[in-house]
């Protein structure tokens, strides 16, 4: 009996020592996974995931604190890529997936309060105090963060219209319900 315990203890000791040595010898700093996750996120910085920006969300995913289906701007595509990267199951998106939009300021109603300028995470709104503000369309990520602060509700979200520059060839087959 004692012999058994001794032998098992010896084994545990040897293995433990080896592991301890290895953990010192092969210590790795940092977490390159965060960058990879962040590269997939759409960088809208919208906070819809509940984290203040894409980087914090990426960190949370990497740490296993957040699920991968919290990013509506990234859409199902983003979820699929994250699932691929992390080897997790694909889950349906938490929120509704919306088409890409941009914010439009109604320049007639804008009173120039600068609140939206402060809210915009990517500096896509220009204007000065007591002057009308305008959203620089190509820079707008459609995060909707500017909509709430506006005291006169002059900001609306509008889907991006199709033009010759962003027009895409469609998938050549569509599903149609057939009676047969």
């Amino acid at each position, binding site marked *: 009996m004692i012999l058994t315990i001794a032998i098992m203890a010896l084994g545990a000791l040897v293995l433990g020592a080896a592991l301890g040595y290895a953990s010192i010898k092969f210590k790795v700093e940092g977490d390159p996974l965060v960058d990879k996750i962040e590269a997939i996120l759409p960088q809208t910085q919208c906070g819809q995931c509940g984290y203040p920006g894409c980087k914090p969300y990426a960190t949370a995913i990497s740490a296993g604190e957040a699920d991968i289906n919290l990013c509506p701007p990234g859409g199902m595509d983003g979820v699929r890529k994250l699932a691929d990267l992390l080897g997790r199951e694909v889950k349906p998106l938490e929120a509704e997936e919306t088409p890409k939009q941009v914010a439009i300021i109604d320049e007639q109603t804008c009173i120039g309060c600068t609140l939206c300028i402060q809210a915009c995470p990517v500096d896509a709104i220009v204007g000065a105090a007591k002057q009308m503000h305008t959203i620089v369309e190509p820079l707008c990520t459609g995060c909707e963060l500017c909509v709430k602060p506006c005291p006169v509700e002059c900001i609306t979200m509008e889907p991006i219209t199709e033009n010759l520059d962003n027009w895409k060839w*469609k998938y*050549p*087959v*569509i*599903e*149609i*319900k*057939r009676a*047969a």
Partner: protein
Amino acid sequence: MEFISTPPFLLLERSSVRRVMLQVLLALLPGIAAYVWLIGPAIVVQLAIATLAAVLGEALMLALRRKPLALFLSDGSAIVSAWLIALSFPPLAPWWLIVVGTLLAIVVAKHLYGGLGQNPFNPAMVAFSACIVSFPALMSQWPALGLQLSFGEQFQLIAGLLPRIDAMSGATPLDALKTALKLGDGQVDVPTLLATQDVFGHFAGRGWEWVAGGYLLGGLWMWQRKLITWHAPFGFLAGLSLLAAALWAWNPQQFADPLFHLLSGGAMLGAFFIVTDPVSGCTTPRGKLIFGLLAGVLAYIIRVFGGFPDGVAFAVLLMNLCVPLIDMYSQPPIFGLKDAP
């Protein structure tokens, strides 16, 4: 439920999946004719049973998956699979065996993967392998030589109305050779066996050698019609015969000659109708050659050293497994990038 909606290209050459499949069926006819002539008309019954089962199975799956029935039923691919199954099964196998095999092929091997064009495994070979593993006895009962049964009796045998008697069935030439060698325990040698036993003809199994010749004829016709390329059949026959020749040259007492192997079992049927299956086979020229070659080698190894009478089906399935990898690594260089490493 998928259906084309956008009007795309406008000029079309006159070719279609149905024409391809019909030509394959046509190419099988010489082999079938020899089969009926030399082995017995029972094969026609089996072909009918298999065709019926395949069409019903296909229709069932299409209906379940809500695909346009008429379009896919008329493509003929299920009938090709059915005929290949009937031709590879023993001609007097009970009807339910053929039905089980065919349904397995159509439902599991084909439609679970999405139907026409999407199955990674050859449906006919899945059917054969599954049945020989599950019903080894029934699958090795081939009509005994010189068995004179009327068409009616053969039909009754297939339908299970007549009891199966051992005297009615024998082994295939390949099996006979293998068993004799094993039983002989070094006492017998191949040349004497081939010369003395009834079951062997001029080159290989009596009768069967001409059926194989029929398949060869059909295959050459398909090649001439550019339905198939030479790569896969050549690779297969080369792999099989080269290995056979090497062992035969090394020890002619223990190993049969290459011609025997080429004309025995499913070699010819496999070479021209199975390994040329574009869906489950390789697609690049180099890939086809490798696919055929390795399938030939594996078929020989399994039929000579393994536990089953013939190895073509398993060899093809094993090579089906390797297809994605072979295709991936045998991509031909593209226009303008031929010098690139």
